[in-house]
């Protein structure tokens, strides 16, 4: 029998198996739990280890790009969850898990402890809004409690100096992980307060597992933050991580960079605000002056200011008219009196005897007295006869 025609090569077999596995969706994206053993962190940055349980084991590889994102250092004996896909390494004819992410197991118990403490402290009033201090707008000194190495302090310095080139930062280094971290953080908070070393404190730590962040979930840290007279901004872990410290702090920043942004005012903005105030002052004053000027002009344009003699003239006209009126009245009166006089005179005229004389009558007077009866006369009396054109002497005979 000639096997030559039907045999496949080792390479072909492994390729076949590889393709078989690759076509299985369940295997390409899988979460596996197990214990780490034979852990090797290669100098290239890749991680090699096996994942096992009581009865079985599987090889695992985690490439540098993924390994860099781990928030903890894997160790032999550690219980973990790995996320990745199963594939075949053709050269060795082995299948293994290509790990993309890994998370520590055993979080459950710790998480329960966290929830319990959180409830307890909340009931004690440590998270109350009323107790929270306001963050000063212009702190002179920013106190930072974090590790003196690593990206956290660097990020804080970078963001702070970008916002305020003349910022004053005081770093009080504290361990942010491990057993002695919590008591050291407590000491540091108290020291900052006792000596008034800052106007505001940033308590920061980079991302990590719940275990890594645990010091920030310790009750003593919570109380130290609560008792601090200096306002504290917490920035622990990533945006999605919430620690007890975050709840007690006066302000919670999602990241250390954000904490710097909250603590350090942007000098450009502040200067703009001053400039704006100055401009507004100038504008308000010139507006005031403008209004005053308008008011002044309105006064100057008024009749009295423009033609001050006008009123006098008006009054003259009025006086003139009064005088005319008076004259008129007087004239009227005079006219009336005059006609009355004429009437009287004509009446008088009618009564006058002189008129009678003109008609041929005469008057006889004796010793200057009018004679009205013959009895008044005796022979020889001298009399005057008044005629219309004069007197004549006569004697009674």
């Amino acid at each position, binding site marked *: 029998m000639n096997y030559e025609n039907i045999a496949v090569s080792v390479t072909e077999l492994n390729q076949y198996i590889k393709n078989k596995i690759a076509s299985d969706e369940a295997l390409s994206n899988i979460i596996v739990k197990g214990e780490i053993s034979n852990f090797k962190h290669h100098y290239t940055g890749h991680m090699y280890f096996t994942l096992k349980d009581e009865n079985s084991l599987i090889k695992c590889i985690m490439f540098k790009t993924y390994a860099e994102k781990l928030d903890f250092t894997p160790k032999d004996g550690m219980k973990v969850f790995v996320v990745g896909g199963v594939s075949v390494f053709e050269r060795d004819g082995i299948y293994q898990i290509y790990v993309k992410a890994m998370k520590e197991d055993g979080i459950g118990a710790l998480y329960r402890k966290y929830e319990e403490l959180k409830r307890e402290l909340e009931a004690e009033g440590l998270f109350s809004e009323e107790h929270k201090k306001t963050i000063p707008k212009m702190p002179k000194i920013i106190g930072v409690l974090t590790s003196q190495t690593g990206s956290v*302090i660097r990020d804080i310095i970078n963001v702070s100096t970008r916002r305020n080139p003349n910022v004053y*930062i005081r770093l009080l280094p504290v361990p942010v992980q491990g057993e002695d971290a919590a008591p050291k953080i407590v000491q540091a908070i108290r020291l900052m307060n006792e000596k008034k070393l800052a106007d505001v404190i940033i308590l920061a730590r980079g991302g990590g597992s719940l275990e890594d962040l645990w010091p920030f979930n310790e009750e003593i840290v919570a109380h130290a933050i609560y008792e601090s007279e200096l306002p504290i901004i917490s920035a622990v872990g990533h945006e999605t991580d919430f620690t007890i410290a975050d709840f007690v702090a006066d302000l919670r920043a999602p990241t250390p960079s954000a904490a710097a942004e909250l603590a350090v005012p942007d000098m450009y903005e502040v200067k703009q605000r001053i400039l704006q105030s*100055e401009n507004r002052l100038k504008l308000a004053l010139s507006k005031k002056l403008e209004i005053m000027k308008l008011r002044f002009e309105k006064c100057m344009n008024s009749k009295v200011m423009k033609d001050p003699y006008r009123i006098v003239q008006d009054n003259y006209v009025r006086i003139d008219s009064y005088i005319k009126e008076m004259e008129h009245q007087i004239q009227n009166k005079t006219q009336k009196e005059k006609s009355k006089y004429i009437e009287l005179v004509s009446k008088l005229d009618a009564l006058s005897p002189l008129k009678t004389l003109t008609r041929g009558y005469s008057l006889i007077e004796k010793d200057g007295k009018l004679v009205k009866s013959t009895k008044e006369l005796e022979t020889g009396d001298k009399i005057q006869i008044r005629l219309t054109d004069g007197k004549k002497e006569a004697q009674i005979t």
Partner: protein
Amino acid sequence: MAKANFEENMENLEKIVAELEKGDLNLEKSVEKFEEGIKLSKECNKMLEDAEKKITILLKQGDEIEENNFEANE
């Protein structure tokens, strides 16, 4: 007179601006407030310019605290 801090100066400045903008003050008072405001803004600016960049690390030496310049290593 105790020297007002920056925040107080800034608050006063903004208060004066609002007062002046209302326009209720007489001219004399307005000029007075204006001068006061300009003085405050100059003071605020001066405070900002007087600040000096300092990044330090506090180290405990027994009971004493030593303040040294701090350089973050890359």
